[in-house]
């Protein structure tokens, strides 16, 4: 549905004619994103009525006020690379592309924090922070993903959380345009320097993002102050390749000074999980990976990957007992040789206690350098293999015992789909991997990736069936907390997560919807990746049901 001329002009007056469009050619590049086939049966979701490129907070505030005045849905995004990141509940919606808000406003080295605008990517901040001996955690979806998207609006989990904690816990303060258009500074004191999310001003971190992020359903975070952590490596680094090698071969020559990487392997999954728990609790790790180790050379394409796999299978010695699934990556770092030595000793002692070993293949110098880059920085996400993947479980902040249960059970379910040919099967029984937070002191998140082909009907159907199975509240998984997926987004439009899980967990969804109604009285902040004020579709007890909203109307 087009905006009325008066409505469009009101928006145009704010940003200027150069930064607003209603041209179908351009609009249709704002509704095609991975996952759409899964959610909507089509690559296109709703075509926005207009897209705007605002440049500052004041403009956004004015835009949101216009949306309230005329009842127009809006949704902001930075890179837009996520499930449902561009989805709108109906065609009377606009998107705010925040590309022009791309400044690192401050790196406060003394207080170990940075203030950034929405289009600043995690990798860019990692590069800049390194110049000050500082670091921000990796994000899984690669180097175009924004810091604010990760830390304030969305949910993700990654291997550096063992050291840097989860994204939501790193937000110190924000400048936030509420769904009413009011500008709220949280975390700021009289100095206005956005230092503490828990005061001296409002402590609203939980409401801002809740467990899994409001994904635009709560307005626009236009500026955020985020924690930084120590970086023990060089201020600059270089990944290189030989002339003629494909660009994917670029890598560090060695693990940077200040860090060491180890890949111990264990006898079986049980032992791996026990040892992992101890490794994480020892407070020695800067990053930790289980089941995904990143030591292998990234091949240039699927054909080369397949050839490499076949070669590896031919040379695989089952009697050797070393597998990726039972191997973990441990990155340690320190400001001094003594600190590194101490941490290495701890790591080796724990490995020895659980009869672990260090295979040559996984612990070769260049392999470790590859693992370091893969696990510490926001490199690319691999959608090449099949075209899409489901970050399938991502149970929130679970206890190690719960995660172990999940790892074992979900692994079995996934294996069934792999064996049917619907999901990519790498062999070796890949399991749910852990992303421990704060040295496992607050649990960990588990995530496994089911790679499917969204344009293969059988594979797509299996993906939906798989999600139904995993998110059935009566399933034997016994998750704790609110499940989520899709890059850890709520999948409300599809499997009615909130309706099904709310009653099991203190009716959290009732409160979530109350918050939504309170912050957004006119329901103008799009909720398709959050929670609607009222449920528009009948809950089907976990069954996959394509939503009646968010789909494109006939053009």
């Amino acid at each position: 549905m087009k905006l009325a001329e008066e409505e469009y002009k009101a928006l145009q007056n704010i940003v200027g004619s150069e930064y607003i469009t209603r041209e179908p050619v351009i609009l249709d590049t704002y509704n095609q994103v991975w996952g759409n086939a899964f959610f909507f049966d089509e690559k296109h979701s709703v075509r926005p009525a207009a897209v705007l490129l605002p440049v500052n907070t004041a403009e956004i505030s004015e835009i949101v006020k216009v949306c309230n005045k005329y009842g127009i849905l809006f949704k902001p995004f930075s890179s837009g690379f996520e499930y449902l990141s561009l989805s709108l509940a109906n065609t009377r919606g606009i998107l705010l592309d925040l590309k022009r808000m791309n400044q690192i406003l401050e790196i406060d080295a003394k207080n170990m924090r940075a203030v950034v605008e929405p289009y600043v990517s995690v990798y860019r901040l990692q590069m800049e922070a390194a110049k000050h001996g500082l670091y921000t955690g990796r994000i899984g979806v690669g180097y175009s993903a924004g810091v604010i998207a990760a830390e304030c609006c969305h949910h993700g989990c990654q291997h550096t959380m063992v050291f840097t904690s989860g994204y939501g816990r790193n937000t110190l303060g924000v400048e936030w345009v509420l769904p009413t258009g009011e500008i709220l500074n949280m975390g700021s004191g009289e100095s206005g320097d956005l230092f503490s999310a828990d005061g001296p001003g409002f402590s609203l971190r939980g409401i801002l993002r809740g467990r899994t992020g409001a994904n635009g359903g709560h307005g626009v975070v236009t500026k955020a102050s985020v924690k930084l952590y120590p970086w023990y490596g060089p201020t600059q680094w270089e990944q290189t390749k030989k002339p003629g090698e494909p660009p994917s071969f670029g890598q560090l020559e060695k693990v940077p000074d200040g860090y060491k990487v180890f890949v111990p392997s264990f006898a079986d999954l049980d032992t791996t999980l026990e040892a992992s728990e101890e490794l994480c609790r020892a407070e020695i790790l800067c990053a930790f990976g289980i089941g995904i180790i990143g030591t292998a050379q990234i091949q240039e394409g699927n054909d080369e990957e397949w050839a490499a796999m076949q070669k590896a299978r031919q040379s695989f010695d089952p009697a050797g007992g070393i597998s990726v699934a039972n191997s973990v990556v441990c990155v340690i770092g320190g400001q001094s040789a003594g600190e590194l030595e101490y941490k290495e000793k701890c790591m080796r002692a724990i490995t020895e206690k659980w009869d672990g070993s260090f295979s040559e293949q996984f612990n070769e110098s260049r392999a470790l350098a590859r693992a370091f880059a893969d696990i510490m920085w926001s490199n690319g996400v691999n959608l090449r293999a099949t075209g899409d993947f489901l970050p399938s479980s991502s149970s929130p902040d679970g206890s190690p015992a719960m995660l172990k249960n999940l790892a074992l059970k979900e692994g079995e379910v996934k294996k069934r789909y792999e064996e049917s040919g619907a999901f990519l099967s790498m062999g070796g029984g890949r399991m749910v991997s852990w992303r421990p937070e704060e040295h496992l002191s607050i649990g960990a998140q588990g995530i496994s990736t089911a790679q499917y082909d969204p344009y293969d009907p059988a594979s797509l159907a299996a993906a939906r069936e798989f999600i139904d199975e995993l998110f059935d509240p009566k399933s034997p998984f016994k998750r704790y907390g609110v499940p989520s997926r899709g890059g850890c987004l709520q999948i409300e439009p599809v499997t009615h997560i909130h309706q099904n899980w709310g009653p099991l967990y203190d009716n959290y969804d009732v409160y979530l919807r109350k918050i939504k109604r309170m912050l957004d009285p006119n329901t103008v902040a799009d909720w398709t990746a959050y929670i609607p004020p009222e449920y528009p579709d009948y809950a089907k007890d976990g069954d996959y049901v394509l939503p009646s909203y968010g789909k494109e109307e006939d053009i």
Partner: protein
Amino acid sequence: MTYQDYTHDMQRCTRCSYCKWIPYRYMKSTDFMEGCPSLARYNWHAYSASGKFNIAYSLLKDRIEIDETFLDVLYHCQMDGSCDVSCKVQQDLEPLQLMQELRIKCVEEGQLLPVHMLVIEGLRKEDNMMQALKADRGKWTEGLNTKDLSSESAEVVYHAGCRYSYDEELKSIARAGLTLLRDAGVDIGIMGTEEACCGGRAYELGYAGELTKYAEHQIETLRTAGVKTLVTPCADCYAAFKVLYDKIDKKPEMEVFHITQYIHRLIEEGKIRFTREVPVTVTYHDPCHLGRLGEPWIHWQGKETKAMGPMIIHDPPKKFRRGANGVYETPRDILKAIPGLRFIEMYRIKEYTWCCGAGGGVIDTHPDFAVWTGAERLKEAHAVGAEAIVSACGWCKRNFLDAAAESDDDIEVYDIIELVQKAM
């Protein structure tokens, strides 16, 4: 191929946006991370390679039509291939080929830009892209006493290309290139007024028929002249002779060299010696058509199949052009061999270089965008401490000169031939 043949690619573009940046592995400066001039300048996602996949898919689904906006998006692009390299680090997709097919479709449907029509009219009439007279084509050699291969014979033909032949500020470079090869003992000549455009730039605009026409013309005239080797100082011409003709199954039966490759060979043979110091701090700009777009064409015929469940592979295995096999080291080796010259690299180089701004017809249709793109590159040259920027293509030099003039930048702009000449 048609644009519809890339449906798989359109569907599988995930909007990861990596096409907008150089590959993260090679990012060295946060000020110079972007790879796509079009997106950097115009902001809307449509202007990125991902956006092109999106508009193609919408066109395929009859959701949009080719209109003024479509053409604006499609032609505000240098076709420089940076997106293609970055995309292919993560995906087995062909964004550049899709863009090419979209342009061909536009031309086939008569959806033309007025400036292109003028340029192509000139090409058809005068065999050059500069809207100049065919009769003036060989005038840049006046006084050189050069063999004219339309009536004489030589082992090597020197194909100057349209830009060097007609641009008053570049003619001296064409002369210098020819002279230094001849002085090194190369049996070389030119086609004089019979030299015609390679057709490469017209092809990039979408005029596929012009490429075929000129490929056939070149093959015939050069065969008649008995030429065994072609040397060109122009990166665009190099890519046309080396890559595009092969792509359309018109591969010439002769060796094709960019002049840097031939100079390099002569240096190794001791036929070119550097005797003079050239005390300048210089950085090298990789011309897209010599680098990533100069990578040999790879023919493939086969089918898509699956492995390990739904993993998409090809039978037989398909080699993608990922930009790694362009000409990168040769010009650098030459520069590093020049006495007194201090060579420094910019942040975006080789496969992931930033375009000069002239490519894809942008210099004709959107000169302001061409100059903006060039000026961005000059900023990068300054950022690494260069006093001069050198390239190996007439289009690059032209656009850098324009960008420097427009932005009051006093950086020196060289063609690599000029530095070689200074050192001899």
